[in-house]
């Protein structure tokens, strides 16, 4: 295993642990210390303090839980719905396929983040609406991939044999088509994780995601930009946290793609 890959796995695992440990830190993350506002990073407070004197490290760790939680739900939803639609379109072909392809084309005509911004903005703030907005944008990639793969898998010998033997469709798709799809889908899902983390943070940065006082990475960065001149650590720390996780996931995605194949 290459050294970069191992480091990336460690980074992702650490953020995962942080997300799991976060509930114990919530009180600490909201502990206001007005006499120490905007304190820069130090040995005792590794990421410094924010504009209300709250320790930034605890807030970033609690934010990790929210970012990772939302991201996992969105990618799981998008992958499930997108794969189902894509496999069915590829399997049935004809008018169903034509319709699905057109719908996919329409969704692809919008820059993803723009559609998510408009949806989240119009649906209103809140985690539910955030998940809806990001999933509505996210299913398309999975659907397109699953459709293209199913289209070619449909004519494989083992699939045709299973069909000739009268295997019921759900069983046939589950046992004979999905396993062969899983490689590219896992690669797609890995890149989707990175993209959704950034998109979620972007929406929160614009004030369209999770509302205060819940700390999310995007909201921390947005609040920090107001103090960019006097306390740049407020932007730097959550920014580096976000960057470390996204870089690690993208690296893992690259390696997975080398092994499993998938998008070019």
């Amino acid at each position: 295993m290459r050294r970069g890959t191992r480091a990336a796995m460690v980074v992702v695992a650490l953020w995962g642990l942080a997300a799991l440990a976060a509930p114990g830190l919530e009180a600490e993350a909201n502990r206001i210390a007005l006499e120490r506002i905007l304190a820069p990073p130090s040995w005792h407070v590794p990421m410094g303090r924010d504009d209300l004197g709250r320790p930034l490290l605890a807030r970033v760790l609690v934010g990790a839980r929210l970012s990772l939680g939302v991201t996992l739900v969105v990618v799981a939803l998008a992958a499930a719905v997108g794969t189902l639609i894509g496999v069915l379109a590829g399997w049935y072909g004809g008018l169903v396929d034509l319709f699905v392809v057109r719908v996919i084309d329409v969704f692809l005509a919008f820059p993803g983040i723009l559609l998510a911004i408009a949806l989240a903005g119009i649906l209103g703030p809140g985690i539910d609406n955030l998940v809806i907005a990001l999933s509505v944008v996210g299913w398309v990639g999975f659907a397109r991939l699953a459709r293209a793969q199913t289209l070619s898998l449909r004519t494989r010998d083992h699939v045709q044999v299973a069909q000739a033997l009268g295997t019921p469709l759900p069983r046939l798709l589950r046992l004979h088509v999905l396993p062969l799809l899983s490689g590219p889908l896992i690669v797609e899902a890995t890149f989707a994780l990175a993209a959704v983390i950034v998109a979620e943070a972007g929406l929160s940065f614009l004030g369209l995601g999770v509302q205060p006082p819940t700390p999310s990475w995007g909201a921390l960065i947005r609040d920090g930009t107001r103090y960019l001149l006097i306390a740049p650590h407020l932007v730097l720390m959550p920014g580096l946290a976000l960057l470390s996780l996204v870089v690690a996931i993208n690296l893992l995605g690259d390696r997975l793609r080398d092994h499993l194949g998938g998008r070019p």
Partner: protein
Amino acid sequence: MAAGFTERRPATLPGPSATVRAVYAALPLFTARLASAAVVVAGVTFLVFLLLHLVPGDPVEVMLGEYATAGDRAALRQALGLDRPLATQWFAFVEGLARGDLGTSLASGRPVAALVAERLRMTTVLALAGLGVAIAIGLPLGVLAALARGRAWDGVTSALAVLGMSIPNFVLGPLLMLVFAVLLGWFPIGGADGARALVLPALTLGTSLAAIIARMSRAAMIDVLGEPYVLAARARGLDERRVVLVHALRNAALPIVTTLGLQLGALLGGAVITETVFGWPGLGLLVVDSIHRRDYPVVQACVLVIALAYVLVNTLTDLLCAWLDPRIGGAR
């Protein structure tokens, strides 16, 4: 895709000149591409139209707030056509679009079309500058990495590319602002006052695309450098620089141009966030401001205009590629 292609006459038959044949070959692609673009445009307008109906509860109440009088509400409902059946509303929406009428801004009372037109120019400037930055940084990095394949420089470039792809605009923007506007004072911290104000937003916007171009051009150049005609050019003793820049890069250009067209959507999406970071008065900033003001007709119009611009550019890219490389027609 286009059925017409399979019946193309064999190239060996005596007949029209190469140019005429290329035009014939491109025609079915041209019509097929325009037809599918038309379907997409229809779908895009429908989806944007539906956005207003996603407002939870009564959109009129959300837009006017709780202190509006019943008369105000009825007036706005009528102005937006919300009292009519959905199909009629959709028809009226498309009819308005065809006349260039995008409705009236609730916040300023001005025609949305005028507001959007003003901002569209600024977003176009920013997007083109971002594209320029991306090509100017990404292409040389990618080509040099391909030439240094497997050596240290290649590794450095690929690490930079992952970093550039991963860093979000709202992290890179404030960082650049901190270093080049606050600490060094080279550029203004925001706004759109003069060409210097464009530098940091363009860098912020172009970085991720530069990383993608670097990867794409590296892969495309490696493919092309292994081709026999490159070997032949070298065997003829041509200058290596000429081999790389003329023989190889020209043939590697096609996948790079395709990527550029496809990535333009991400660039336009990134512009929304970049404009917000730097206070650049384009469509993106208008979308975000309008969402916060609940000025939904303006939100609809901005989303529509950006999506249509993206469809237009993608269609043009496809046609450009088919024109650059007639082989594409046969492959579809």
